[in-house]
């Protein structure tokens, strides 16, 4: 299947790249949104990053098609990631690095975006329900922060970026079976941490 993709890229030129890229776009946006530093939100639009990434991808597509070591999406994601890193550096200095910081640091408690956002998308029935959920999220963040980096990254790739197992394996540079086992192990560990939370089982089972 990946061969077909590469063939299409070689044959189709820029149009093919654009087509495939727009297929990927929702997932890329998702990735950028989740990885973008909170302080940059409002200043940097994720679409801008993706657009910048696209320019880079179009420029370097020949490098990829001549030697495709990973799936196309994994490569596209990698370029986007690098763009994201450079945007962070530009705005926040050399040391800044996009990661899960946003999710692992609890949002500023003085800002109650949660209620507005959730109310507006109509998911919410009551403020106390929202608060309870917010509580769960906070605990989830905490649980995640206690896990080791690879476990956490596997979970982020699978659930936040919604990558498949093979893609995760490529991104992490490990075998597919290893990636799968790694994921299962990570989710079990998370389960262990979450099991200590009151009522977690009944609420999410």
């Amino acid at each position: 299947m990946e061969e077909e993709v590469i063939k299409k890229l070689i044959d189709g030129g820029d149009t093919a790249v654009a087509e495939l890229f727009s297929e990927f776009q929702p997932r890329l946006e998702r990735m950028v949104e989740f990885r973008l530093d909170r302080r940059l939100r409002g200043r940097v639009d994720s679409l801008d990053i993706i657009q910048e990434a696209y320019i880079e991808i179009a420029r370097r597509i020949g490098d990829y098609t001549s030697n495709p070591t990973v799936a196309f999406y994994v490569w596209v994601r990698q370029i986007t990631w690098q763009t994201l890193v450079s945007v962070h550096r530009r705005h926040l200095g050399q040391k800044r690095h996009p990661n899960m910081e946003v999710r692992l640091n609890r949002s500023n408690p003085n800002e109650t975006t949660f209620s507005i956002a959730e109310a507006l998308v109509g998911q919410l029935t009551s403020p106390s329900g929202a608060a309870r959920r917010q509580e769960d999220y906070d605990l989830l963040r905490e649980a995640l922060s206690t896990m080791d980096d690879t476990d956490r990254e596997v979970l982020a790739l699978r659930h936040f970026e919604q990558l498949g197992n093979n893609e995760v394996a490529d991104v992490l540079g490990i075998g597919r079976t290893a990636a799968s086992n790694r994921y299962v192990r990570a989710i079990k560990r998370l389960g262990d941490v979450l099991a200590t939370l009151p009522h977690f089982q009944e609420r999410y089972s």
Partner: protein
Amino acid sequence: MTDTTADRNPIDVLGDEFAARLREGEAPSIDDYVARHPDLAEDIRATFPSIAMMEKFSRKEHTERTFERQTSRLISDSLETLGDFQIIREIGRGGMGIVYEAVEKSLKRRVALKVLSPGVAGSQKQIQRFNREAEAAARLHHTNIVPVYGVGAERDLHFFAMQFIDGVPLSDVIRFVRGRPEEHERSGPSGSGSLADRLLAPITNADFRPRDQTENPTIDSTRCFNVEGAAKVLLTGTHKDRPLPSVADSDSESSVSSSNLTEAIAAVEPTLKSLTITDDPAGRSQLPVISMKYWRNVARICADVAAALHYSHRHGVLHRDIKPANLLLDCQGIVWVTDFGLARHEDQEGITNTGDIVGTLRYMAPEQFNGESNNRSDIYSLGLTLYELLALRPAFEESRHGPLISQKTSSMPAGLRSINREIPRDLETITQKACATNPADRYATAGELANDLRRFLDDRPVLARRATITEQFIRWARRNPVVASLSGVTVTLLATVAIVFAVGQYRTQAALDIVENQKSELEDGQARLDQSLIAERNSSRLARAEYVRAEKNLQLAVAAFDSIIDNVASRGLPQSLTLNIGDDVSGVEGPRAYDTMLTAADADLLETLLTFFDDFAGQNQTDLRLQSASARKRVGDIQQRLGRFSEAEATYRQSLEAFETLSSQKPNDSQLIITRARIHNEIAIAASRRGTMWGAVDEHNRARSLLQETAGVMDTANGKLELARTLGLLTTISSRSGMSALMSLTRNDPSSGRPPSDGRSRGDNRRERRPNDQPGDRPSGNSRPDQERSGQDRPDGGRRGSGPSGSSRNGFRNWSEMFRASSDQSLALLNELLEQEPSRPDYRLELAIAWRNRATVARIINDPEMGKVAIASAIQHLDELARDFPEDPVYRFELADTLCLRPSRNPDNEAVDEFLQRIRRAIVLCEDLVERYPNVPEYQALMGTSLTHQATLLHQQQNFGLAAESFLQAIELQQPLAEQFATVSLYQVAYIQSLWGLSEISIAQNEPGAAIGYLETAIDRLQILSTSAPQNRMLQHYLEKLRRRRGELARPSAEDVPNPTATAG
């Protein structure tokens, strides 16, 4: 993405499918997976819940980001114009949209333009809400509400325009006053300019973010106001009354009219200057300290906000998001309520989904968590805002939402004064009431809150005090060392009763208030008739339920109060033969509050409670009316004790009336009769203390008649006891209060300290002598209650009338005979009671007092032998009681008081020596009492009296040095009492007496300067006292006496003191 499954963990494969279904919006069941894959059951259960959680979290994050992106996209299409509006700059953004500063081109006025985010506006519901917000807000015209000019839509952008307020949100002011400049300094090198820039305008929701300065360097140089200026306005500003342009003005001119703007700049110019100079953080130290001005300014702006809310509530508009960030302070110190953006129009219930969350969690009222909002929710939010302005920190600091909600629903914020003692107590009280957890405990309307804040500003008592009866009650209990002397259980019980009672009572009142308010609104013919009716029905039901509860609490509370008052009352007053051994308390075993001090606050507290007692009593509950009447009597007791005799008498009469009504319904209830008699006696005591002796005699006679002439009463022990008391009181009427001392003074005063040349000994009759004790006098004033003879000091009596009306009833020839017979009867009754129950300490005490009264009678009728026996008997009984009950100070107090009793009119030297011995013993007893119970004024007073007695005796014995020392010791005790209890004439007179005595000794020691000093102090005191009681001729006479003496001292021949008896006739 189309991963093969062969090389994957089976749980991973299943989990992937599970996650995918969740993403599609399905709700897959974990149990189904377990059923389909029993071999993996354990692993599925261990992993799927976590997967579900991760997915849910992921979706939530995604939603938020998308939403934010949509909002931020709005600005990337840099808006320049929108309809008639020229956009100047962005001033803030929130969940619903962005606020710009703009100019309305046609009218050339500066406006704040609120633009709804396109993403948000996509929802029909949001557009509806947005338009409704504008409509609702546009209808409000109030000096403290940011006016809304209009609403519009252009290029798919919905917006509305409102007056541009050159102000700073209070949230920033609070942060600044609290001292966290770093948050503002972050806004860049442009310093206060960019700071002002970001603080200038209304901000929508909490999610306020400044725009990146590098991208939008627009700074309006006309900006005059910044957060430091606002803080200074609050800290030091003295607010000019409403300098605000009227609504019409602001329509014709731009937001803050240009002239106002100039003024405003001028007003803060010094501030701005100091700002530029003190650009460094150290300059902050120049910020004025928080003082009363700050508290008052806070009260003022919150009063204005409350008034604005009241106005909007009356127009059916709830704000629903009151918080510091939505209150703008402009440079004139005027506060503006902005962002009615979340307001729900009450008559459009259907449109707003009640489940929607609006407002900010931190300031939301607990009931809003359940989607319920009403005007009291806004009051609550304002209460928390007030709290934060005063405490400079949020009322609830918890930032996690769950705990925050549970804190709010279950607890009150920490007491403001526990955070800062400087915060005025009244403001604390008002805040507490405004943010009570239970809506019913809050102010019923924002107007009430505004009024209470204004009462604080006018230094008038605030009404919120009513809500804190609990607190008062607890404070009362704490102040009274009941807490120290009672067992823990009793204390707890008391506190519980107090709280339960106060809460119940307040709820009831609140419910009644609701009914009342609803009614008045109905009468106003206002809209929302149906709602009012429903609310009224609910309120009435609530009120009825609360009545039932309050009834029970009331009974408990009265009982608790009774036991305390009884314990206090049982101490008696020095120089008073009154004893208040309760009918019921006598039988009550258990600890007593020996060290309780009653103050005016106690009387006020009880009076407050009484208001509610009366309400309940009005519900036709016989039992409650009894409680109410009893409680009223208790108020009288306290007033009596505090020397507020006129008030006491009035209160007693109300109580009496209530008891008479009860009695007429239950004619056979002898206890009611006894209580009535008792109240008559109390009225008599109050009357005699005020110097209206004949009225007092009448009242005692009424008590006696009631007891003797109502069938069955004299068959009861309590009836007999009360009659014995009545008789005792009747015979000693002239000796209670400072009056007797005054009366005797008119013929025998400290100036006659030297041994008399006429052979009469000193002071023999100064304490207990009744003025009209001539044999020809008539014992009753029944027939001539109008003939107040209290001022009678002429030895010839001078009473008109042929015979005592009482004599026809009682058959006595004269006072002497009546007194002796009454005393005999009193003793007989008590002996009879003791025969039945020989161990009753209250009977024994009453017997001792009867003997003591007999000693008084003996002196009045001039029977020294009778007096000697009586005093000896009284002392003997009290000695025994003090021995049997060593822990009970009451008996030692009475013993000491009895020891101070003068033996006879003309004691021989032996008798004087014996008296001096007794006085010394009394002093020792008092010393012990004062040491053990340092807070009891009566003990100090008695000790003072004992010392005065000793001093007088020493004076008579020419022992001037010791006498002076004794007087000084007495004064040391008497002066603070006189100052603390300005209305208790007993304490005043005792103090004045000692001053006079000391003055006379100074003369004897040839120190006329000191003598004049003491005497003038005494005269000053007495003048104040007699002014407060102009009807008391005794005091007037006393004052004349002292002034005359003062005149004599001024003369060179002052040492040759004229015989005072000459002045007494």
